[in-house]
């Protein structure tokens, strides 16, 4: 967090008129900032010269907590890293521990993880696309999206008893097996949900006003996206076909068929806000596809491996990556052979997206900043940890 800002006032404008650079403060509490974060906007009339992100308002020192609570004890805290999509955070931490200690997860456990993660991804993308609509002034689509997300929360609640901070996974597998009849109910829900994606598309994705609001706004070239370390849907929106689930396969993902949708600049420029939005819409369909395969093909067996209660992995350092809803989430964990990790570092998708905004905002209209934040799907707790 910082408040030091250089201000250059009075300068010559066109026609010899003196103009003044305007400094606007957006946040920390603002309905479209998706959490508590702040932008210092330097504007010349309606055009931004720079929007400087100021983060840290939601810093809960989760990485420091990890050093104090030990490996098993850290699992509930990982939910809070990204509480919009907590399942993948669970999975990232579990995978880091498993890699440190060389634990193999039973196949049914991996399937349960995939099912939980993909439901989490759909719920998170629904929030993202719904909030994008709302930030652009379309309130109704958000209610549609949030309604479906509530049903998915019900499904996840059935799985683990919680609706947001799941604490579902364990080192070596999952805490609970699927409840009786879960697969049948989940598939019945998908049968109902999938036609609603089309409905949602008709409602907003191809709406002329909405398309023109997002298309050609803040395009990111593939090269810039990579050098900024943008990941997940933000990277794929720029046309880079890279998905950790497919390119660095983990868990049970190699057993499923799914496509990796990328942006093509279909309504404007490659990598614009509309491309990023559309990638999320298409990923929802792919998640449904993975879910159907996983729910139908789930093998029998235990869901969790035998892991000692005093978990002391051998000294070493690992860096694992999972495809979270906001993209490649890196979990760096260092062990010294004791029951407490020496260091845990979480590199999240929103962090890079947030860092990119300062460059990306140059020359944009002030009103488009909201579109940029929404299309990059920034979730503030994930930035600050």
């Amino acid at each position, binding site marked *: 967090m910082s408040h*030091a800002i250089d201000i250059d006032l009075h300068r010559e404008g066109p026609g010899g008129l003196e103009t003044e650079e305007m400094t606007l403060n957006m946040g920390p509490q603002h309905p479209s900032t998706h959490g508590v974060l702040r932008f210092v906007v330097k504007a010349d009339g309606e055009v931004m010269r720079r929007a400087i992100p100021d983060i*840290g308002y939601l810093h809960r020192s989760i990485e420091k907590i990890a050093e104090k609570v030990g490996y098993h004890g850290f699992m509930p805290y990982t939910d809070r890293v990204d509480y919009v999509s907590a399942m993948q955070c669970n999975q990232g931490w579990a995978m880091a521990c498993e890699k440190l200690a060389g634990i193999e997860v039973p196949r049914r456990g991996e399937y349960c993880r995939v099912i939980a993660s993909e439901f989490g991804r759909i719920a998170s993308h629904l929030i993202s696309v719904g909030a994008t609509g709302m930030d652009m002034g379309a309130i109704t689509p958000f209610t549609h999206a949030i309604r479906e997300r509530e049903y998915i929360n019900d499904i996840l609640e059935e799985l683990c008893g919680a609706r947001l901070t799941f604490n579902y996974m364990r080192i070596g597998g999952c805490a609970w097996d699927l409840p009786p009849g879960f697969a049948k109910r989940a598939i019945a829900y998908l049968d109902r949900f999938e036609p609603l994606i089309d409905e949602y598309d008709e409602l907003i994705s191809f709406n002329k006003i909405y398309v023109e609001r997002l298309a050609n706004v803040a395009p990111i070239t593939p090269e810039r996206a990579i050098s900024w370390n943008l990941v997940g849907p933000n990277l794929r929106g720029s046309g880079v076909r890279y998905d950790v689930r497919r390119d660095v396969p983990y868990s049970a993902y190699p057993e499923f068929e799914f496509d990796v949708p990328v942006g093509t600049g279909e309504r404007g420029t490659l990598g614009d806000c509309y491309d990023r939005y559309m990638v999320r819409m298409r990923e929802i369909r792919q998640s449904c596809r993975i879910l159907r395969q996983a729910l139908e093909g789930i093998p029998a067996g235990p869901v969790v491996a035998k892991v000692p209660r005093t978990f002391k992995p051998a000294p070493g*350092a690992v*860096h694992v*990556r999972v495809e979270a809803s906001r993209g*490649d989430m*890196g979990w760096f964990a260092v062990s010294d052979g004791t029951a407490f990790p020496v260091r845990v570092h979480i*590199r999240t998708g929103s962090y890079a997206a947030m860092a990119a905004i300062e460059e990306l905002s140059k020359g944009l209209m002030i009103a488009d900043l909201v579109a940029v934040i929404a299309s990059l799907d920034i979730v503030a707790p994930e930035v600050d940890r």
Partner: protein
Amino acid sequence: MDADGIHRALREKFAGAVDPDWVAGEWPIVTVGSASVAEVCRLLRDEPALGFDCLSNLSGVDRKDDDRIEVWYHLLSYRHRHQVALRTTTPRLDPVLPTVSHLWPIANWLERECWDLLGVRFVDHPDLRRLLMPEDWVGHPLRKDFVEPDEYHGISTRRESLLKL
């Protein structure tokens, strides 16, 4: 390029700075002298056969017992689909490293975070301010010997136990 090739390419150019041993794994670990990190990174990024176009992560680790701070650079190449982890160390008393923020823009924030939480000074960084902690915070919280202050601007950080055991 495989890990052995990456290591050999680095050894050819920086025989003095790159450790002859490397550790195999998903992220092959190459140990680099702290003064040469920026040049090694530049070669990794600009040499077409290496082509590391993305800095995936930069993490500092406080190794208090060895009196040093370890910094890890996890590099990715989307072009060639290979990856490598660079490991370097710097003395704990005055940790200094050259910046790589001119090579990958994301390093700007990652280095600011490392400065904020671990106190590693990145030379020639354009804007080395705290990132997550308040700017008037004293100390670097991820240091192993960091002591939490009793209060911050009159707000106590101590709480009475509700259980009264």
